[in-house]
């Protein structure tokens, strides 16, 4: 035990003297390289997490709420929608519900037309679930009594003379304009545009809303809904709430927003994860090679010193450990500098976020990703530090001393 401690003390002594009295330039360079590798390892996953987070927030706030209730197998609509909403709203932890009627319609405006979705909603209810009403860029949101009013997504409303790149657009609708809507049952209505909203969620910004009162009248429906969106008190516990709803005997299909959005996000995340894995692998290989080269040169430059240490009776394991300790120290400092750099980058990108199709993306640095990066950096450095030291330590003493 004391022998082990004495040996470690000598390794630490040699390591420290070497760092302290060795070349400061090489030291700074090595630390910087490790810091940059660290940033490289942490940054991309943080952007991917940010994309996922943005996507989730957008789905909940604008598209789907936390849970989605859909008609039973074989039915087009949910019947007795008001009763069902009341049942759900009584469940603890449920903040609001919004029944929507969905119709695929064609919009006409000044000889232009666009096919997209029209939702019939109860404005009060919709406000209790989604935040669309807070994102009006012009005019205002619907009121419960409106019958001849429509609010429209900014993409669908469009901009005069601008193509929307394949997305449905009426190119220049403004508040107060009249838009004609052709319903799937052949009915047409003319609505006055009451407001335009912009959520940056493209599925929402290409749609429009009228009141359910109006849509019921056009489609001849009564207390029916295509879908009921449910908002829960906290995000991230959708599975639990789903179980809770099922336990209340609700017969309709209940899905979490993740299940509903499923395929698309999962695929995107999978692709991102592949990119991330490749980038991580490349960073780690670069880290191995760079750390290896730096330590190797450093160690080779000290062949004579290693020879002398052996000659005066210092065990090879002490010598190897002193190199490994140096590498551990350099890696620790490098990781700290890397964390500082990453914090700077994250702060900057939080102030000036990257803009993705789903909206602005803020980097989300997750502790497991940071820990994984630190662990892999240390693993790589120890290997890269151990091998050259081990090689030179096995050399013949006199050849090593001759240099």
């Amino acid at each position, binding site marked *: 035990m*004391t*022998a082990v401690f*004495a*040996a470690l*003390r*000598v390794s630490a*002594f040699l390591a420290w*003297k*070497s760092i302290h*009295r*060795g070349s400061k330039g090489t030291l700074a360079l090595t630390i910087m390289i490790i810091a940059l590798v660290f940033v490289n390892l942490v940054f991309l996953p943080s952007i991917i997490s940010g994309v996922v987070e943005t996507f989730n927030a957008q789905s909940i706030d604008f598209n789907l709420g936390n849970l989605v209730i859909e008609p039973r197998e074989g039915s087009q609509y949910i019947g007795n929608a008001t009763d069902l909403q009341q049942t759900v709203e009584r469940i603890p932890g449920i903040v609001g519900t919004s029944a929507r009627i969905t119709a695929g319609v064609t919009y006409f405006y000044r000889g232009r037309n666009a096919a997209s979705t029209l939702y019939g909603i109860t404005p009060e209810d919709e406000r209790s679930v989604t935040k669309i009403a807070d994102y009006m860029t012009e005019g205002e949101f619907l009121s419960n009594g409106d019958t001849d009013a429509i609010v429209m997504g900014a993409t669908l409303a469009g901009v005069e003379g601008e193509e929307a790149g394949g997305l449905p657009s009426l190119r220049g609708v403004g508040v107060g304009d009249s838009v004609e809507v052709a319903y799937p049952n052949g009915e047409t209505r003319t609505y006055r545009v009451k407001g335009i909203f912009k959520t940056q969620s493209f599925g929402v910004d290409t749609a429009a809303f009228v009141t359910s009162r109006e849509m019921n009248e056009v489609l001849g429906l009564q207390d029916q809904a295509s879908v009921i969106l449910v908002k829960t008190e906290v995000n991230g516990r959708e599975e639990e709430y789903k179980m809770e709803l099922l336990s209340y005997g609700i017969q309709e299909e209940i899905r979490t927003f993740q299940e509903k959005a499923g395929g698309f996000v999962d695929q995107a995340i999978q692709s991102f994860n592949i990119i991330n894995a490749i980038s991580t692998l490349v960073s780690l290989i670069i880290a191995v090679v760079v750390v290896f080269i730096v330590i190797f040169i450093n160690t080779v430059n000290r062949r*004579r*010193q290693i020879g*002398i*240490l*052996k*000659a*005066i*009776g*210092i*065990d*090879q394991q*002490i010598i190897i450990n002193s190199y490994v300790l140096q590498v551990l120290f350099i890696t620790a400092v490098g990781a700290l500098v890397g964390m500082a750099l990453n914090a700077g980058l994250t702060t900057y990108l939080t102030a000036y976020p990257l803009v993705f199709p789903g909206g602005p993306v803020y980097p989300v640095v997750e502790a497991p990703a940071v820990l994984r990066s630190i662990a892999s950096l240390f693993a790589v450095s120890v290997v890269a530090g151990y091998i050259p030291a081990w090689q030179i330590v096995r050399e013949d*003493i*006199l050849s090593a*001393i001759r240099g």
Partner: protein
Amino acid sequence: MIVAENLTRVYTMGKVEVRALGGVSLEVARGEFVGITGASGSGKSTLLHILGLLDRPTFGRVTIDGIDVLALSDRQRTLFRLNRLGYVFQDYALIGELTAIENVYLTSLVRGASKEDYLERSAEILRRVGLGDRMDHRQSELSGGEQQRVAIARALVNNPSILLADEPCANLDSQTSRSILDLFARLNEELDQTIVMVSHEDWHKEYFCRVVTLRDGLIEEMTECGRGPHPGGEA
């Protein structure tokens, strides 16, 4: 004591063979102070390297204090050097990143000495070789002779049972040389220190019990000097 039999060291460089030692047999008793002389290239350093467990002979046997040192593993040899041998290299071989005193106490650190002990002991030995005011200098801040004396202090710090010194006075003026040789003689007399020292200064002979002269890798001559083996040493 050291018993070396028929030590042969052949260096092979491509097709050329250099016979640095051609069969040297030598015994050094405990407490003896032996000088090794000979022309440059005669094999003095080669012999000392083998006795110091830094090199292995091509043929021959070496036992030190009854231990067949050639049969030891590399790590056992390292431990042997640490615990029993002190070696002064012809080119000093100091660690450039360490100060004079750090160079001296490094091996004490390995042996697990306490901080007070090794600091006190290394400072004392540095003062004895005349470097009391150079303890915190690094190699690049020391003259050749000062470096040589640090190397001597380092070899002596653990009270080795055998001191092997390769021209330890090569870079010293005659007055400093004399003080180093006086130190060796005192250790030899008072502590029964066994010393094997390479030298080619004639006047050093007055310090030796015996002088071994090498020529082309062979012992040319062995002469007893004024100072016979120190009483108390085994023959």
